[in-house]
């Protein structure tokens, strides 16, 4: 069991490190796969582990994207002029400016969404069930509208992220650079969540999912855990957003930053497909989903969203517990559900 785990982790790590060299043509696609894994993992903190369906996590992704790019530019140049008219042509980042800006941008892309999550969470995480879900539905939409009205970040026209500086490798090197940034961010997200789920934090999130009133009756200030959980999601989502903004190179309110209808839906779908409320489910779900999407999307030209709809229906009907849930049912002993003899007898008595 332990050894199997090591092999699994090792294989993934090796794949992650080698992929850009083994499949150079797919570097960008695999980078986006890691981004999707981050989206699914962070959604699952609320939607899976804690049982709070959120449709608004895309908010943090978009905020991170705008904050990162604005910092990268604003640190060295007047942001207003940059966004007003093709500023990336007038102003050029030197390599050191570029990397300093990117580092600062990514740090802020993590921190600002955390603060936003704390403030909004304080306001709405007191809502339960459908009320919370519907409330979050408004968040992403409102944010897109808002961003579309703010001149300094390009309003509805959007803005460009700083282009890769001259004299520091070609576009291949650029995509390798961002590949490893996304891979590391994904690893950090996974490792942090894996660690946190083994702590009291993870236990209480599950308690909130199973019966929040009971958790409160046992003296647990559930609000603290809910807000903290959302802050954790916001942190990694914000950084992911910052990275995507730079990878795409162009930021726009509703199609790229606050993409409720694509990424916002995908993150939920992937977590459910893989098995929500499990550590590996969102990872596997995101990978399967991405491969399916990249592989078959072109076959459904014009019908992508119909295909997506069918996929949703198929998942809900045939894999209600996701791939992990299905595997767990097939091979319970592989999941550490080894029932000792006394327990097995107890179970028989129960039935």
């Amino acid at each position: 069991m332990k050894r199997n785990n090591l092999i699994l982790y090792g294989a993934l790590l090796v794949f992650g490190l080698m992929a850009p060299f083994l499949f150079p043509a797919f570097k960008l696609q695999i980078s986006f796969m890691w981004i999707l894994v981050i989206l699914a993992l962070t959604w699952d903190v609320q939607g899976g582990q804690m049982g709070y369906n959120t449709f608004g996590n895309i908010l943090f992704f978009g905020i991170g994207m705008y904050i990162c790019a604005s910092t990268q530019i604003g640190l060295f140049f007047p942001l207003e002029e940059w966004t007003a008219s093709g500023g990336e042509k007038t102003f050029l980042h030197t390599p050191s400016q570029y990397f300093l800006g990117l580092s600062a941008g990514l740090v802020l892309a993590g921190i600002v969404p955390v603060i936003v999550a704390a403030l909004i969470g304080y306001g709405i995480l007191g809502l339960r069930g459908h009320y919370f879900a519907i409330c979050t539905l408004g968040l992403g939409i409102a944010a897109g509208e808002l961003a579309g009205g703010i001149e300094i970040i390009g309003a509805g026209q959007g803005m460009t992220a700083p282009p890769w500086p001259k004299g520091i490798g070609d576009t291949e090197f650029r995509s390798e650079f961002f590949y490893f940034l996304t891979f590391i961010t994904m690893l950090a997200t996974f490792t942090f969540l894996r660690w946190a789920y083994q702590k009291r934090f993870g236990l209480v999130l599950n308690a909130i999912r199973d019966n929040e009133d009971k958790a409160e009756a046992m003296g647990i200030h559930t609000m603290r855990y809910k807000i903290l959980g959302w802050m954790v999601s916001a942190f990694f989502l914000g950084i992911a957003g910052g990275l995507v903004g730079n990878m795409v190179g162009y930021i726009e309110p509703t199609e790229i930053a606050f993409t409720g209808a694509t990424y916002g839906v995908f993150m939920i779908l992937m977590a459910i497909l893989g098995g929500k409320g499990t550590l590996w489910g969102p990872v596997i779900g995101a990978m399967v989903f991405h491969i399916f999407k990249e592989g078959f999307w072109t076959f459904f030209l014009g019908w992508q969203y119909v295909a997506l709809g069918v996929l949703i229906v198929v998942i809900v009907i045939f894999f209600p517990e996701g791939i992990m849930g299905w595997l767990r049912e097939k091979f319970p002993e592989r999941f550490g559900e080894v029932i000792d003899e006394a327990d097995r007898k107890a179970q028989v008595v129960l039935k």
Partner: protein
Amino acid sequence: MASILRVDKVSKYFGGVKANQGVSLSVRTGSIVGLIGPNGSGKTTLFNSIVGTHPIDRGTIEFDGREISTLPVPAVAKLGLLRTFQQTRIFGKVNCIQNMLISSNPTKENLITIFSKVPEELTEKAENLLKFVGLHQKRKLLAGDLSFGQQKLLELAMALMNEPKMLLLDEPTAGINPTLINGIIDRLITVNKEFGITLLVIEHNMRVIMNLAQEIYCLAHGEMLASGSPEEIKNDQRVLDAYLGAG
């Protein structure tokens, strides 16, 4: 002896429904007190009022010398006043041990305690308490897979895990196999005598409450109808009328 819980003229209305109307009671430290009354007489509502599930409309509630009627549920629980639910509540998708660990009382909930491992010795304590209620063998099963009666026992063990000063039990024997009820009575007496936990028990089963409680309060239509020793209550005409549906 001093009272650990003092409820004074508490009223709670739901729209036009007077669920509690000027209810007063007091529970001596270390005693077992019963709360009876016909269906819908406001017993569970009184529990909810005491632990802060809903704001009360009038009156005061004092626990351990502190006014608690405006505190939220977790804060009251942290003071050492816990309740169990009439419709048993457990954490169904995690196993019994985990249910117990969640229930252990973290005195502080800050970043450090939230992100620390649950102490090892708590698992041992959890196993011992599960043994005490007879669920040790089932400790690794999902709590949601236990039978209703077993879930009631688990809920009791979870409450004990929290080490409260006082427990409000909402029908601890409802739905339990009659042959097991004596076991529950014995355990509740142990909880009271040996763990030193004061008990306030809602119970419909007269035999149980007469055996358990030193003092009994009877509610009817949201008002306190009578109180006294089990003997007195048993022979109180008003109580008999209320139970026979004359009210």
